[in-house]
Structure formats: structure tokens, C-alpha cells
């Protein structure tokens, strides 16, 4: 969680200066609990696919920090060699198969990974991250139907942050219908939870993971959460009027990291000094990643091996 938070905030702090991160960047500040919890509950050989807002999912799953920052800088050492940018992350060594920028685009891909697991008869699972708006796409529905039909080892994790860009849920989905109950109607076991509570999220995800690994078919989890910064870009945008300052402040009070910190301090799992050390260490790693990214080479359009293979 700390890594994710500090990383996002470091991007935000540096985005304007120097203008070296020249790609659309969707930060997940405020939403760190679920990605972190999922990363803990999943095995390294489990698959993950994700969305435009993927930094947390990537880091949570153990994706290489240096390669992610380099990718955002458009460098050759980036996880996608500079071809993808913030919205196209990959680290197959830890099962992070890919994040893409079309809403709901990776949902069937994740289900297809689930199908491949079934065909290969391993005990992996495939985890699909999605936003609340992604549930409005027909392909989401088609994907859930097939996962249920074939009892595939797929975990759907929907982070419901109330908005699609600046559009609140109520202009997109019937107000008296929850996403969870809708998915239950599709025949998929579905549960919701507090996405700002890291421990609750972890427990719910772990339970789902266990059930799926035991061959009981897909599970859908909906977590309520909130994005602090603007939809795309490094700034805050409460002033533009699509959400209220009060709503924002209320959610900020539910900061998942602070809550977790209080909890583990109270439970004496950790002490203040250890936390400070952890924070300093994490920030140092991140600062180093930025330094490496800045120094790294740019890729060259002409030295791609695959170019002109097709349409040659």
C-alpha cells in the first residue's frame, strides 16, 4: 500500500516539472487497499489483467517498480519498451499479463486466461480488475456468462469508486440496483465490501481465492472506494464541480493507509519507528526508480524487430 501511495504521489509531484511523463496517467491514490490486498492474496503464478488505472495492481502483484516508472517516462527500459506508457503495463514474471486502456477490454482476456488454466489443468487462478463503469459494457456480461457457464477459475474484482471520469453512477446505472446484486443475477457468486479497509479486503479476497482454487468457479467482488485525484492526470479536481468537496473530504477521512497504520500500531504489530523506516525506505526506492528512468535511453522507432513483419 505504502509503495503504491508513495509511487502515485511521486508521479503527481513530478508530472508537471520537466514534462517527462508524456502519456495519459490515471493515478489510484486513495484506492490502494484493494490492489495491495489482492497482490497478497494471490500467488505469484496467478494471472492478473487490469485497466487504465493499473499502477496499484501492477505494484501490488509484485511488478517491477523501476520498469514501471521507466515505461511512464517512455524509455527503452520500460516494461513495455516505451511502446505502451502508463496504460499498458506488463510483468509476466509475476503473472501481470497486461493492462489496457479500453474500458472492459481486458475482462474477456482474463476469462480466457481462466479457460487456459482449466485446459492446462493447473491450480492457478486468473484475476480481473475492473471499474464500476466497465460493468456497463456488454463484453463484461458476456465474459461473466461464459465464466459461470464453464466454472472457470476467475476472480473479478470491481473497484467501485462511484465515477466514470466525471460521470456519477446514477447517470449510468439504475439507482436501486447494486452491481453485486446484478452480478448475482447472472449466476455468479458476488459479495461486496469496504475497499478502503485493507484487512477486510484481504480476507474477502482470500476467501474467494480459496474457493476458486478449489474448483468452485468464478467469484465477483465489489469494493467501495474513492479516487482522490483527477480521473486522468496528477492534480486534484474537486473545484470543477462534478463532485463535492464534502464528499471528497468524507472519503479522505477513510484513508485506507492511515486506517491500516492505526490498526497495526494499535495491535502492536509494528511501532512508529518501524513505520518511519519503512516509509523512508519505500520513498528511497521510488526516488531511485525515477532517477534511473530519467537517465535511461529512449527507444528507437527503427530498431524494432517486429516492425514491417505484417503489411510488409
Amino acid at each position, binding site marked *: 500500500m505504502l509503495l503504491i501511495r508513495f509511487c502515485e504521489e511521486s508521479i503527481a509531484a513530478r*508530472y508537471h516539472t520537466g514534462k517527462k511523463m*508524456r*502519456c*495519459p*496517467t490515471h493515478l489510484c491514490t486513495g484506492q490502494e487497499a484493494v490492489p495491495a490486498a489482492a497482490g497478497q492474496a494471490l500467488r505469484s503464478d496467478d494471472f492478473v489483467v487490469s485497466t487504465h488505472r493499473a499502477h496499484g495492481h501492477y505494484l501490488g502483484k509484485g511488478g517491477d517498480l523501476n520498469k514501471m516508472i521507466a515505461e511512464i517516462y*517512455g*524509455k527503452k527500459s*520500460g516494461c*513495455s519498451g*516505451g*511502446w*505502451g*506508457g*502508463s*496504460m*499498458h503495463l506488463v510483468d509476466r514474471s509475476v503473472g501481470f499479463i497486461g493492462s*489496457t*486502456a*479500453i*474500458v*472492459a*477490454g481486458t475482462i474477456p482476456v482474463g476469462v480466457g486466461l481462466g479457460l487456459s488454466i482449466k485446459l492446462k489443468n493447473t491450480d492457478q487462478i486468473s484475476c480481473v480488475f475492473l471499474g464500476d*463503469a*466497465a460493468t*456497463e*459494457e*456488454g*463484453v463484461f456480461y458476456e465474459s461473466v456468462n461464459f465464466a459461470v457457464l464453464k466454472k472457470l477459475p476467475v476472480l473479478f474484482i470491481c473497484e467501485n469508486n462511484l465515477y*466514470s*471520469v*466525471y*460521470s456519477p453512477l446514477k*447517470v*449510468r*446505472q439504475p439507482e436501486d440496483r447494486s452491481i453485486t446484486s446484478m452480478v448475482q443475477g447472472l449466476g455468479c457468486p458476488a459479495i461486496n465490501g469496504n475497499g478502503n479497509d485493507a484487512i477486510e479486503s484481504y480476507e474477502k479476497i482470500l476467501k474467494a481465492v480459496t474457493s476458486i482454487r478449489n474448483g468452485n468457479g468464478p467469484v465477483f467482488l465489489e469494493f467501495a472506494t474513492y479516487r482522490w485525484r483527477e480521473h*486522468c*492526470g496528477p492534480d486534484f479536481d474537486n473545484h*470543477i*464541480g*462534478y463532485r463535492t468537496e464534502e464528499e471528497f473530504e468524507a472519503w479522505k477521512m477513510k484513508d485506507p493507509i492511515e486506517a491500516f497504520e492505526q490498526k497495526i500500531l494499535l495491535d502492536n504489530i509494528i511501532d512508529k519507528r518501524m513505520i518511519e523506516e519503512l516509509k523512508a525506505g519505500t520513498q528511497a526506492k521510488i526516488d531511485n526508480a525515477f532517477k534511473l528512468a530519467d537517465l535511461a535511453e*529512449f*527507444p*528507437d*522507432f*527503427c530498431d524494432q524487430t517486429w*516492425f*514491417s513483419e*505484417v*503489411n510488409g
Partner: protein
Amino acid sequence: MSCNMTFSQAVNDALATAMQIDENVICYGLGIPDPKGVFGTSLGLQEKFGHDRVFDMPCSENGMTGIAIGASLNGIRPVMTHQRLDFFLLAIDQLINNAANWKYMFGGNSGNVPITIRLIIGRGWGQGPTHSQSLHSWFAHVPGLKVVSPTTARDAKGLLLSSIFDDDPVIFLEHRWLHNHTEEVPEGDFRLPLGKASLLRRGNDVSVISMSYMSVEAIHAIDYLQDKCNINCDLIDLRSINPIDWETIFDSVRKTGRLLVLDTGWETLSVAGEIVARCAIECFDSMKCPPVRMALPDCPTPTSWALTKNYYKEAVDIGQTIAKMLKIEINLEPLKQMRGTNHDVPGDWFKGPF
């Protein structure tokens, strides 16, 4: 009466005008009523025309396209907007199987489908593979669709109004890099006929056929060649990609004997290719040298600043190509210098990230 405004203000003005004239015009799309108003193009519309006629929508591109078709069959004129063309790929089923075919498949007996679909083509600041696809050539391949692609603010207004009141489905393409282009735009119900190209520059040496943002690069190149080297080119801005104004193109090619076509999309099966093909067929005897097309390499758009540098073509590339066609040497260094170091923005107004 006319008024100085940007391309996006002109789009906004056209939408407001259309909604004022005809209460059957409605306007929806993701983010249409939000504070950013789709790059300013839809600002204020919901306030002026109410929530019934101007609304946001679920992330359901295919369904919402079919819904536009259905509404249009009962006399509504929906204008649907997508912040990127790429998102509309989810709706190809309804667009092709229904909208494009509808008039024909009922022998004209089930009404027209007067829908207008605004698609914004992204470029720059790392838009990457799925936020910059320019598939006008796809749309222009399909009978039953009209495809409109304005370059200037004035054309944007005049053509959008005509598109909305046209009885066929119209794909209305807006290049993101044009949104800040400023010009005098007539007030009120100002329409321009669909299907007519516009002659932006006049000359006898080369016929340059261009579209959308590439026409801006072409103007820089052609003006430079005229000023510095006394080379004079016709510059034909297509404006309409289906139908194409063939007579204007053929007349020019028959005059100059040299054809250069610029395209914002991939080279293979590009609109530029179609123009080269038809000119090769129709103006065979007039051609003085092989026709040339300049389009994007056949490869998805990369994201990195460093990778897009060699992906897109600029004024200097156009100048170079024209020189080659005329078999002359030209110093293009000053033309190259005209552009700042950041090739991935059209100007300072474009700040990313979207």
C-alpha cells in the same frame, strides 16, 4: 455576422444552433454534460436544452448506437459523441449491420437513419495504440455511411450542421489537434454542402490532396515552397471522405500531372491509396510522374515521445517529397526549425494528458 472562434467553439455553436432549430436534435455521449464538456464542444448545452435532450450515458457504446438508430427511425436526430474514435470500435456491429444497411435493406421503406456520430482522433502526449487510431478508411469503405472530416473551424460548423440535418448516418471526425484552430465563423444556421472539397492553395506544379490535421502541415510546407522556391501547388482539403469530390481532384491532377496524397491513417488501404488508385485509372494520360502517398507506417501508434517522432509526418517531410517529385533540391532547414522540439503537441495550448 461572423465571430472569431476556435474549432471546438464552432462545434459547440453548431450543436447549439441545431438544437435551437429543431427540437428533434438530441445530443449524448460519455461526458457530454460534464465540466470539461468534451474538450469544450458540449459546454452549456445541457443547461440550455435540458436533461432530456442532452445527457451522459452508460459505458455501452454498441447499445447506445443502436438506441440512436431506433430513435432516429421515429424522427429524432441524435448526435452521439466519443472522446476517441477507438472507443467506437465497440459499436461497429450497430453501425454497419444496422445504420449503414438500414435504408437499403428495407428497400427504402423503413425510413432513414439520420444519426451523426462525432469521433475524436487522438494524437500526441503518448495517446498510444488505442487512443489515436484513425480509421476513416474503414468508414469510407462502407456504402450507406457518409464520412466528414473538417480541417478549419468554419468548416467544422458548416459541415456539422449539414451532417446533423442529413438523412444518412454521418461519421463526423474531429482531429484533436484541430480543436484550437481559430477563425471567423458565420453565426446562425450556417451550412456547407457535404461532399465538396475545398481548394486551400492554388498552383500548377503538384496536386496535394489532404485531409484533417495533415492539411495544416501541408499549408506550412506549401507556403514555404511558394515563398522560398516559387513552387506552386494545389492544396485540396477533402472535407468529405465519403463521398469524395472526385471531379475537383481529377481536374487538379489533369492540370498538374503530379499527385501527392496525405493521410492521417495507416498507409495500406488508406484513403490516400484510394485516391491514388482512382487517379491512376481516371487520369492515366495526364500523369507526369508516379503518384505518391504519405500516411502512417503500418504499425500501431507507439506511446513514447521518442517513438512517435518517426511515426508521424510533418511539413518538412511533405516539402521533401514535393522536391523529390519535381526532381529539385531545396533547403528545408528553416521549415524544420519552424516546429519546436516537442513534436508530440500541436502547440502550447495542448497540455495533455488527454
